[in-house]
């Protein structure tokens, strides 16, 4: 990459993420002055066609937004509609929901670690290539993933778009003892996940930091997955500490119904994903944010794994702000989800009914849960008959887009400052890694990163897609 002149780098593909992206960098005399991650997602209009649907339908319909994290959509949808109807689901039904969610966390985090992200650190194209030289690591990943899918299949009916979730709980609940065979499998997966934490902790991590505000749900006493209050950790820049610092920073909370007042979504010309800001600032959700805000609520076993994985002591409030190390945080989260699933199964007693009644009423409801990739917020307005009159879905990737762009700006700038003359391929590979660190899920029509590096004295190139 040169500091002057404009070059277009056509790169084969941005693989091992969900979606099609183009990155547009503006370089002005050795300074990266702009980074736009252009997302082209064929619009699917969920918020539009949910209007006029029955209030019972969002859990099944919104699952179809994402085949990787359908349970997250089902859970946020249930919480939002139940909120509108004034119903709270507690006790063993809530525990079963959390168990189902743990299955998705295990499956999704392990998919990302073993199949999508680890190849970046090992210099291979993907898991299939990795299997030729390190088959054991790939097979172990598939085994853990299968254990997560086993929870989804037994409790949900199938791993993708489970059918057993409904407003108020489930269509059918497991009998006492029915979950025991799952526990056998999960105990083996727990040992495997330990091995994965050790494996990824040994990777070579570039020095990097992030200067974002962090947003995650939090609830006292446990690591927030299926419920909690939106919690914000201030950014290092506000406190004058380095972006790579591991120090915890002050927290503030707001109720989930304040989400529309706190978070502003705007449309930018270069993306079909709406971009969100928190109080006008970019922010990050997902594993790094959750770990920073709720690390001390991890189970003792997961805390031990975090320490062994080089993340410091979460009980002492140590935070991880190196996006490359997010792979270690995800491995700890996967281990936690297995541990938590075992705890829930061990304590399970069938509730008297598979669901509580959720009678419709007019009003607006808000729901937020922690998808593997970050906070997923739903809002629905119902009329008195239970028909939906308005729907809003704010997925993690649209919340993270501005933060990812800033990470890429920072990454490329650090190379320029170091005087490194990257080839086009090297620079693109670096940017792709920067994107994969955040496991974005863009559900787009194709995958390729088209990197345009532009000097400011040149006319801007039009994007490759309309």
């Amino acid at each position, binding site marked *: 990459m040169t500091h002057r002149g404009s070059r277009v780098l056509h790169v084969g593909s941005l693989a091992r993420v969900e979606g099609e992206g183009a990155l547009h960098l503006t370089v002005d005399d050795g300074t990266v002055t702009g980074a736009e991650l252009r997302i082209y997602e064929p619009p699917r209009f969920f918020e539009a066609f949910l209007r006029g649907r029955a209030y019972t339908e969002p859990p099944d319909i919104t699952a179809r937004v994402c085949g990787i994290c359908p349970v997250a959509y089902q859970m946020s949808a249930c919480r939002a509609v139940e909120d509108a109807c004034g119903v709270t689901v507690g006790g063993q039904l809530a525990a079963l929901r959390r168990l189902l969610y743990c299955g998705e966390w295990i499956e999704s985090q392990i998919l990302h670690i073993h199949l999508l992200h680890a190849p970046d650190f090992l210099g291979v194209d993907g898991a299939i290539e990795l299997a030729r030289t390190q088959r054991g690591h790939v097979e172990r990943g598939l085994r853990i993933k299968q254990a997560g899918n086993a929870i989804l299949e037994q409790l949900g009916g199938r791993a993708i778009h489970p059918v057993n979730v409904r407003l108020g709980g489930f269509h059918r609940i497991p009998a006492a003892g029915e979950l025991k065979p799952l526990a056998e499998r999960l105990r083996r997966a727990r040992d495997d996940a330990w091995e994965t934490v050790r494996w990824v902790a040994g990777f070579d991590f570039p020095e990097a930091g992030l200067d974002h505000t962090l947003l995650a749900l939090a609830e006292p006493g446990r690591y927030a997955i299926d419920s909690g209050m939106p919690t914000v950790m201030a950014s290092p820049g506000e406190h004058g500490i380095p972006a790579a610092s591991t120090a915890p920073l002050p927290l503030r909370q707001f109720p989930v119904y304040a989400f529309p007042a706190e978070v502003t979504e*705007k449309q930018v010309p270069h993306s079909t994903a709406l971009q969100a800001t928190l109080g006008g600032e970019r922010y990050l959700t997902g594993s790094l944010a959750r770990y920073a805000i709720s690390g001390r609520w991890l189970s003792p076993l997961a805390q031990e794994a975090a320490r062994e994985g080089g993340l410091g002591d979460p009980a002492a409030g140590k935070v991880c702000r190196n996006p490359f190390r997010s792979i270690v945080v995800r491995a700890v989260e996967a281990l936690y989800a297995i541990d938590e699933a075992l705890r829930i199964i061990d304590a399970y007693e069938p509730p008297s009914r598979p669901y509580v009644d959720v009678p419709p009423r007019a009003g607006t409801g808000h729901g937020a849960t922690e998808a593997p990739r970050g906070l997923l917020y739903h809002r629905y307005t119902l009329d008195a008959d239970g028909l939906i009159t308005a729907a809003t879905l704010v997925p993690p990737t649209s919340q993270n887009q501005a933060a990812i762009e800033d990470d890429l700006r920072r990454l490329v700038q650090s190379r320029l400052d170091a005087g490194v003359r990257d080839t086009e391929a090297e620079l693109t590979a670096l940017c792709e890694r920067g994107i994969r660190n955040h496991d974005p899920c863009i559900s787009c029509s194709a995958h390729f990163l088209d990197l345009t590096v532009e000097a400011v004295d040149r006319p801007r190139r039009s994007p490759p897609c309309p």
Partner: protein
Amino acid sequence: MSAPRPEGGRRPALAVFKLASCDGCQLTLLDCEDELLNVAERVEIAHFLEASSAVRPGPYDLALVEGSVTTPQDAQRIREIRAAARFLVTIGACATAGGIQALRNFADVEEFRATVYARPEYIATLATSTPVSAHVPVDFELRGCPIDRGQLLEVITAFLAGRKPDVPNHSVCFACKRRGTVCVTVAHGTPCLGPVTHAGCGAICPAYGRGCYGCFGPSGSVNLPALIPLLRRDGMSEDDVRRTLRTYNAASFAEVEGAPS
């Protein structure tokens, strides 16, 4: 569909493509944990971005396509994929029937665009969501939202063996009986689309005490008008029936709504 082996004893080249969809159907391939590495040894994975950043241009022996056509670019791309593929198999309700995004076909897409986006002029989209077969010839179609893992492996296995896939065309009721599930309609008066829905899921919903909601679309020989009075008898309003049929396979249920086929 039957596939003569590629010449020269080379491994057949597999490609996986995505149009407008949720990624769930291609994830089904990665969810074949026990078989994934074996399949990967039998084929050359020439283009599968979920699994590898190593991609090469066509020709491909087998192309699996997920997602529906909703943009002018994808209408062009599916032609290019077809030209590069010896066999083209659509995987899932989006690619096979237009998917849930085909709900735009019954609405004003301009109004949809203005509802979701403050600046609709930035968004390129077609007024309809159409299946791949509306644009190019398709060699085989797999149904389901999402597809079934077993059916996907059957298609790949059949392709490798050069035989036709054994994917039954009957209704969910057959699978329900085989599974030994008590009929939810007869026993509990639960409305169920099982009698008119294509088998393949393994009849999951009735086994969980829930009526089938038709995510595999209509079965081979279907008399939908005969089922509707039963759905109404079991408590569904006219609007409920309409909504249920207009969800994941709206376009294909609409085709059989009028008369027995």
